[in-house]
């Protein structure tokens, strides 16, 4: 289990990082990485195209830092649109149908969406993205590359729960009755994968007990903020990026990665009809580069090794995402949410 102890109020960010298991402490790798993002021809072509457009499901602060660095480096501005997967699918479809594409690059966590859009040939093969070679096969499909692993975690308020929870079972422990918060599996995308994993691992009784012990949250970010405020004591499935942001502000939250867990992976694809094809490729290669990864996955999990400030991945399981939608009504019923 990969434990990240809480940062007590007043504790420093450095303390948090030192405590974090598996932190890679800034190896001087930047200079040694392949220069795929430095291709002069591509940069020149991209600069001629003007502004680029990125559709992403990532924390605004992180994505702003990423595009700000890209602009600083290449002088090219990127407009960011943040969308959850349903709206993203609708928009990309509308853009293709109308022949007026806007998106150049897409970053999303919904694998079913990616598979569907790939079948419709919305994306270019990843071989067209400079730098794809440095990524392991396990992080790639023909048209998408995983740029962030976000393994689901257990999160708790350290003022309300003094002892580090042992695992997912703490969520159904009677001592936590009325103090548990869990995400509503109907929110779409990948959170329901965690519920399926729990059901497959511990049986129906786990979800029933979870429903009785706690309350559902409509979305991960608001849910985790309720934990930080002490409105509820313990939460799952936690999103590491959000926890990192809260810990950095000295919020009293602790996080661990009990086994088994599942990851919400952010995948990057380049649109086949990108209005700015050179920017799309340059931006993607920047995101794939060690520098881009260090910004995107600061205190998080990159699919490639040697990225400064990232952590080693916990062990993860992958439930079948293709059948997830059919399983959601069963999950909702077991949790007693209607």
């Amino acid at each position, binding site marked *: 289990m990969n434990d990240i102890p809480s940062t007590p109020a007043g504790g420093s960010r450095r303390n948090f990082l030192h405590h974090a298991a598996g932190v890679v402490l800034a190896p001087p790798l930047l200079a040694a990485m392949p220069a795929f993002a430095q291709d002069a021809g591509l940069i020149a072509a991209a600069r001629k195209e003007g502004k680029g*457009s990125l559709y992403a*499901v*990532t*924390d*605004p*602060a992180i994505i*702003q830092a990423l595009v700000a660095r890209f602009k600083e480096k290449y002088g090219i501005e990127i*407009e*960011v*649109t*943040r*969308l*959850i*997967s*349903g*709206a*993203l*699918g*609708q*928009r990309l479809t*509308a*853009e293709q*149908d*109308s*022949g*007026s594409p*806007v998106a150049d690059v897409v970053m999303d966590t*919904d694998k*079913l*969406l990616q598979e*569907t859009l790939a079948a419709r040939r919305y994306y270019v093969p990843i071989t067209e993205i400079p730098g794809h070679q440095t990524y392991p096969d396990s992080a790639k499909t023909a048209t998408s590359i995983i740029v962030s692993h976000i393994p689901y975690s257990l999160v708790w308020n350290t003022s309300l729960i003094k002892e580090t929870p042992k695992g997912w079972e703490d969520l159904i422990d009677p001592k936590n009755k*009325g103090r548990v918060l869990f995400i*509503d599996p*109907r929110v*779409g995308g990948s959170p329901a994968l965690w519920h399926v994993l729990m059901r497959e691992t511990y049986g129906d009784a786990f979800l029933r007990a979870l429903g009785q012990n706690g*309350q*559902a*949250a*409509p*979305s991960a*970010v*608001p849910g985790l*903020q*309720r934990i*930080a*405020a*002490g*409105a*509820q004591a313990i939460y799952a499935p936690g999103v590491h990026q959000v926890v990192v*942001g*809260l810990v950095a*502000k*000295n*919020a009293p939250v602790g996080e661990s990665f009990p086994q088994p867990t599942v990851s919400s992976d952010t995948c990057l694809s380049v649109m086949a009809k990108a209005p700015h094809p050179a920017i799309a490729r340059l931006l993607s290669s920047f995101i794939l580069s060690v520098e881009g990864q260090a910004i995107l996955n600061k205190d998080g999990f990159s699919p490639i090794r040697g990225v400064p400030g990232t952590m080693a991945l916990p062990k993860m399981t992958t439930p079948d995402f293709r059948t997830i*939608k059919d399983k959601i*009504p069963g999950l*909702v*019923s077991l949790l007693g*949410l*209607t």
Partner: protein
Amino acid sequence: MRAGTGRTGLPAGFELLLLASLVLVTVFLVYPLGVAVFRTLGEAPAGASAIAKSIESGALLRVLRNTALVVFGGAALATVVGAVLAFINERTDGSLGASGELLPLAPMIVPPIAGVIGWAILLDPRVGLVNGVLKDLLGRLGITLDNGPLDIYTPTGLIFVTGLYLVPYVYLIVAAALRGLDASLDEASRVHGASPLRTMVRVTLPAVRPAIAAGALTAVIGGIGLFSVPIVLGTAARMDVISVHIYRLFEQFPPQTATGLMLSAAMVAVVQFLLLAQRWLVPSEGHAVIGGRGGRAGLIRLGRWRRPAQGLAIGYLLATSVLPVLGLAIVSLQPFWTPIIDTKQFTLASYTFVLFENGPTSRAFVTSLGLGAATATAAVLIAALLLLGSRHSKGTLAKASDMVLTLPATLPHTVIGVAFLITFTPAPFKLYGTTTLLFLAYLAMALPFAARAAAAAASGIGADLSEASRIAGAGRGRTFLRILLPLSLPGLMAGWIIVFIHTAGEVTASSLLAGARNPVIGRVMTELWVFGSFPQLAAMSIVVTAVTSTGVAVMLYFTRRATLRG
């Protein structure tokens, strides 16, 4: 001569204009829905079987039961509170004056989602600020509580907040009617020795019955479509309602468009039924109207009831506007939401982020406020033309106008967004990604609200005035412009404000139609809720509240001046 025809018996120029406008509006509203339905016909069997499965499992019925409970509970609360507050503020010496006029709008001025989060910050059972104060007070009485005493994450909490959000719908419409009401009835009641309460219950409020009914109906319609309250509170309260249910059908991938559209069609039927019921229950005759004679008399003196009445109004204002805004203001200064208020930790970082670092914010303000004003003006003008213009025709034109304008009322905004997206994206329109597309979708959503306000305003104007105008030789168009429009201005302004605030903060359809190139406030707020943090969302909402309330105050100031002059 039959009303609705010219001197020759043929439709006059103005009638033709009305007819043409009605046809245009009908095409504008029905065409996108038709396209959406046609496109999803192939999926229809799947949609029907999904609904059948949902009914079989009881899930859909639970959703409908929850919706009825929340909507009717909330609308009932809103009708009582809205009508009483309007009476106090418009007809009695317990009025709070200009501030009393602005503040009942506050639950609407605080943008959706953020306002509800403001309530959660106050009434969370464990860390709510109000609960903290109450726990302290009870502690002094020897009662110790771990949680509560109030819990917003319950069905009652959901109904309460829904009700507060619906009060403005009732207040604005009833207040406008009361403002235009001949005061001689109140005076007669008073002369006969009736108490202020008796006068309110027996005389004044019954006199504006159509406005109260219109307000209540608008509240019900608004309640069915209300999304921000149930999405934030309903999940934890285990109260899934229809707006959230349909939102989820469209929000997943691939979207269950056919199921969503079928459920939406059912909702349209419900609203049409409600409108028919309203016409049946509240005939347009037999209530007080603005007469051409008489004028405003003095306000009702409340005597010993003055202070309690003012207390009630102030209490409502505190509860609905000051406290949630205060809660949000505190959180906007904190690094993360915490019930421990430590001023040393306060930071402006969230304001800096939303105003200067988060790219789309400033453009979102310009786009949303511009679209808000444009949509409100267009919707109110269309509704006024169709409903006031056809007011005395009593024929099919008036009824048809009412039906058409209220058609989109319960279409969830997501459905309107999808319909407009798939209709206006391909050639020949090619409006995808444009502000025009946003405007069109907003206009469709705004028409029912404008229509309710226009209908209420129209019902308060007596036939004698327009008859006098026509006897004096003015045509229908001239009577409309010179008599009906100016007299109904306060009521129409109420509609304008509702539409403006709604449009400026619209969330759901914007998530499909607005993008990086044309960001709007509602989208930026949703992004901050789903991807950002409470302090950022709170900071953004404080800024939005400041901007929209200034706008509304300016509008109210000018309307009041215009009305007083008139």
